[in-house]
């Protein structure tokens, strides 16, 4: 039980997953407390990015989400937060309640606390027969189900880091992997290189229009009419979220749907040092709520981390 794992001294106090309004407000408040803050994610992936906001207090007129997010990023940087436009693809708990994240390009960072504010993405494609084929060829989680598709022909649908990272994982297990991208692949060049190395076939500019198969998935029809015979279709939209990143650390999700992270009034989860804010904590999906929760999470995580760092510096 007293096994000694090499102790990692975290290089950050707070790592924030997600660059929406919750993540940026958390960064501003944590950085103003003099915590060392790293923010990971792509602002253009935030649901706010393409929105027009007219119901946010004290900011009159209509503002674009893009304008608000870019201002928020500048504010966070001004107070000392570091921003890196990469999604997190894996989380891990280190010794003494510190945490490590791995980004899409394979870099790792560690911190005393994490704030998960990656928003929510609708899981499925909403296609006819999709629900009945889950577990029979359709999957929403590469990390969970890749091993069941050894030497199989599979495809991954999605434009973000979750899909691309999933395709790379599958390329080491399956016989053939196709990545179905609706528009552009929004990922780091290092991850793109991994896709090439894994011989992932790119089906760009297409969408899955139809699923074929009754007892199990046989094929998918793409929007350009192409039929792909498949053993498995993995649907991985956007970036990894609550289920893959938080639940993996033991964070409790809402017991009804397992979609949202459960927090207390300090935005703390059941795991010490792990906080959450914004849409990932549930509705209403409003910028004002996200900002409020981000503020609380930033203050809570910043305070927790600084106390821990001070204690370790004194004892270490």
């Amino acid at each position: 039980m007293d096994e000694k794992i090499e102790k990692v001294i975290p290089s950050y106090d707070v790592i924030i997953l997600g660059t929406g309004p919750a993540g940026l407000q958390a960064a501003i408040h944590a950085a103003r407390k003099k915590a060392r803050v790293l923010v990971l994610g792509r602002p253009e992936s935030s649901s706010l990015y393409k929105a027009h906001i007219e119901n946010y207090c004290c900011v009159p007129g209509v503002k674009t989400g893009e304008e608000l997010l870019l201002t928020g990023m500048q504010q966070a940087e001004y107070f000392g937060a570091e921003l890196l436009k990469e999604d997190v693809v894996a989380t891990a708990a280190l010794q003494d309640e510190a945490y490590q994240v791995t980004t899409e390009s394979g870099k790792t960072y560690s911190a005393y606390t994490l704030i998960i504010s990656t928003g929510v993405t609708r899981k499925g494609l909403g296609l006819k027969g999709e629900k009945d084929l889950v577990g029979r060829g359709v999957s929403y989680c590469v990390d969970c189900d890749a091993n069941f598709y050894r030497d199989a022909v599979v495809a991954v649908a999605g434009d973000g880091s979750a899909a691309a990272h999933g395709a790379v994982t599958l390329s080491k297990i399956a016989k053939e992997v196709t990545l179905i991208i609706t528009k552009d692949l929004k990922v780091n060049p290092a991850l793109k290189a991994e896709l090439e190395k894994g011989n992932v076939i790119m089906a760009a500019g297409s969408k899955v229009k139809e699923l074929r198969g009754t007892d199990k998935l046989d094929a998918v029809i793409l929007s350009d009419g192409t039929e792909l015979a498949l053993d498995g279709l993995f649907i991985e939209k956007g970036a990894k979220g609550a289920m893959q990143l938080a639940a993996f650390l033991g964070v409790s999700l809402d017991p009804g749907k397992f979609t949202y992270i459960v927090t207390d009034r300090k935005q703390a989860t059941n795991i010490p040092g792990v906080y959450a804010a914004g849409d990932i904590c549930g509705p209403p999906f409003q910028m004002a709520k996200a900002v409020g929760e981000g503020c609380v999470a930033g203050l809570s995580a910043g305070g927790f981390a600084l106390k821990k760092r001070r204690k370790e510096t004194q004892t270490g």
Partner: protein
Amino acid sequence: MSGDKLIHVTDVEFESQVLKADKPVLVDFWASWCGPCLAIAPAIEELAGEYDGKVVVAKMDVDKSPATPGRYGIRAIPTLILFKDGQVVEQITGAVGKAVIESAINKALS
């Protein structure tokens, strides 16, 4: 000690502890690297306590026991299968709320 009510089975004991059990058995096929499996784990543990004496609740790690998931065509986890007299009577794939699992168990018990 509700945690003690939950049993862990492998490919080796599956026949004796699940198929030949004298009570219905709910098997949770899971793996340690599967986030959704970890998310529903507390609910599974609670059910083991609540249905004690009526239904056996078992967990099978698909990493350590690949034969049984293969036999039942499992290609996604978590998958919950309720066995009664050696037959599959209910199957649920993915992380679902405790109420959904309860209603599947109650249906099989009625």
